[in-house]
């Protein structure tokens, strides 16, 4: 049985990288004494899948991890036990049972939304509202992307699904799929450059708000949070 676990990441643990978060949960699952399914062999490991990796320094309200279990008390019990076994900065907000047909967390990711704030004294020296309107009016936003293979040009525009100001911050929803993933810093950097400014990544305080998958079952394609796929009890699936 597959479970999808939604968690938040705040405070000092934002400095824990993605691979270490995976290691954290391997141990947390054991401390919580969940009946997790293991692979065989000399070094058995837990069957786990994480949605989109979160960069070091970013906080989140919408992280996801899938695990496979052999048995289940209840979703609430799993949530409570994991919270008891965990550190304060990592909170489990929901546990859902996934239908057998559901793809794993990593493969399901299509988009992610972010709130971007500016550190005190690092606010942009231009009218953000205006700049975003102009920014989005372009058909293409070419940026240079450095990869292991070299430098290439990519277009950001088609991967920006939503971008607007919201009080003193910017709300951003972008492509987070494995083939078109966009980092929020890339978008803000392009916005700055278009306004003749350079961006120090450190100016930004970024929180990922939610991670989405595509729901193609209805009449029109919709973004839905990853945990909308699951249900609260195994019976609901049958």
């Amino acid at each position, binding site marked *: 049985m597959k479970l999808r676990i939604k968690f938040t990441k705040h*405070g*000092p*643990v934002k*400095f*824990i*990288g993605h691979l*270490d978060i995976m*290691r*954290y949960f*391997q*141990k*947390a*699952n*054991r*401390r919580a*004494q969940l009946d997790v399914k*293991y692979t065989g*062999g*000399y*070094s*058995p*490991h*837990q069957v786990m899948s994480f949605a989109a990796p979160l960069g*070091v*320094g970013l906080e989140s309200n919408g992280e996801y991890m899938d695990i496979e279990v052999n048995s289940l008390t209840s979703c609430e019990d799993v949530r409570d036990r994991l919270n008891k*076994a*965990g*550190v*304060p*900065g990592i909170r489990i907000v929901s546990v859902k049972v996934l239908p057998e047909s559901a793809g794993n967390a990593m493969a399901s990711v299509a988009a992610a939304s972010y709130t971007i704030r500016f550190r005190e004294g690092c606010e942009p020296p231009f009218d953000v509202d205006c700049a975003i309107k102009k920014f989005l009016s372009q058909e293409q936003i070419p940026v240079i992307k450095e990869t292991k293979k070299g430098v290439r040009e990519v277009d950001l525009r088609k991967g920006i699904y939503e971008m607007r100001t919201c009080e003193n911050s910017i709300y951003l929803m972008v492509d987070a799929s494995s083939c078109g993933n966009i980092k929020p810093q890339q978008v803000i950097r392009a916005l700055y450059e278009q306004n003749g400014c350079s961006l120090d*990544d*450190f100016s930004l305080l970024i929180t990922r708000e939610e991670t989405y998958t595509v729901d193609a079952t209805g009449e029109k394609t919709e973004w839905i949070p990853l945990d909308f796929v699951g249900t609260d009890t195994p019976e609901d699936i049958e």
Partner: protein
Amino acid sequence: MSQLALSDEILLKVEKPARYIGNEVNAQIKQKSEVDVRFAMCFPDVYEIGMSHLGIQILYDMFNSMEGVWCERVYSPWLDLDAIMREEKIPLFALESQDPIKNFDWLGITLQYEMCYTNILQILDLAQIPLLSADRGDDFTYPIVIGGGPCSYNPEPIADFFDLFYIGEGETRYEELINLYRQCRDAHLSRREFLRRAAKVPGIYAPSFYEVRYHPDGTIASFEPTEEGIPATIVKEIERNVTDTYYPMKPVVPYIKVTQDRVVLEIQRGCIRGCRFCQAGQLYRPVRERDVETLKKYALEMLKSTGQEEITLSSLSSSDYSKLPELIDYLMEECQKQHVNISLPSLRIDAFSLDVMSKVQDVKKSSLTFAPEAGSQRLRNVINKGLTEEAILQGSTLAFLGGWTRVKLYFMLGLPTETPEDIRGIAELCNKIAATFFEVVPKDQRVNGKVQIVASTSFFVPKPFTPFQWASQCTKEEFLEKAYFTRNAISEQLNQKSIKYNWHEADASVLEGVLARGDRRLSEVLLKVYQKGCFYDAWSEYYKHDVWMQTIKECGLSVEFYTHRERSLDEILPWDFIDCGVSKAYLKREWEKAKQEQISENCKLKCQGCGAARFGTGICREHFQADGEE
């Protein structure tokens, strides 16, 4: 915890920021209003190394179990953060509270290897605590800086930087020491008066109350307390009952991968073997086993509280633990149920260990390890290493038949009395093991068709409180010559293609030798090399050999004096004021027997009268009881 000591800007700039944020599972947080003694426990190396050390975990658990005491951890900031902290004058902080160390009551530093000595100065410097004990004033403004661990058995090279040293096992005297501190502080006595009283607590050495005089040739003329009532000899402290004492049931679980990333079960303390080069084998006498039922309970409890996916056993010689089969059978059964890996320590290779290894490891991927330490039986007798060629070849035969094809061998070069013949023995032994493989494994059953023998040599550094404490250490040139000789001897072997040879760098072994048997005059050298930018000497990429050699000269001292010179038996050695449990008479006997190529039986077979029996515990007590029954 509310606030980190380092800003986001810094944490985003440095490598592995998780080293500095604390907040790990099982880290101990206490209310500041409920504690009156703050203790910072330091391992002066990077987080991943320090977090792997069992001793600190035991003491961390012990201190935090004391009412009113909050013990926190601190490690050496890596070079990137070190530079930022100096630049921005950020005081070194403890991980749990993120508060500056300089405001603590105590700074305890564990001394696990000589090459970390400059990192002690880095810690003090970043903490903004005066480097020299003498500069710390006469009140309790600065923490009391105390050292402990194996290197405190010759604390003299670092004596000037410490207020106190704790000689021996930490479980016994800290509570008394902390209470004494409380009394003196609360009665507004002077720092000096506290140190004076502390110097009278058993096991505690306060270097500022002792004076060393030297002969013109540099050897020690006298080593004496400067005041009446300060003990002339410090007897090591020992935990007599290792079962009924502190053990961390909730070890801290690091976020990042550390060197020893698993539950560690210390099954016994001490070793029965008496290898003559081994310092730990003398320091931790007598061997004391932990009760097997207690260990089983500890294992389950720690796995549960940490969620670790691997467990290992710790001791100097696990094969000698009397209940090993019972313990391993139990762990194998429990661990399989819980999907926990067992990482086996180096066991003596025999039918039992091979059977266990085949159950918990992938035979095709794992390798066997032997530590003959010397290439010939003659030299193995000199060092009292009881491993015979016959046992190695028998173990190899069993292993090859069981499917293993990789063998690792550890040797030392530069052992006392070593001849070219002994070194050639290393090559010949490797060759014989390879030949055994081709002999016992039929061609069609050979995995990958070949056998892989990896021989590694380290350079022998004589250590205090071993029978070799008087011996001459080889020079760098001699070391390298021996390594080349070994390489050539291996290349002359019939099966040379199956043998790979690695050797250590010689530079660091020279310095290790200086510091290991050094005296108080080396404190000045340490201070100077540190001021010239030396630290992280244990990391070969940062070790600046030339700066060290130059500075030793500048201070009017010589490497030759500390390393190459053979000491006479009546010389006062810098560590003679410490009584580590084994007597000097015994060490002399062993040194004589070594020169005569005579072995000494292990403690289980026959008591060698080393002197540790006076502690009335462990194997000595078993002997005593057995004798009584006769």
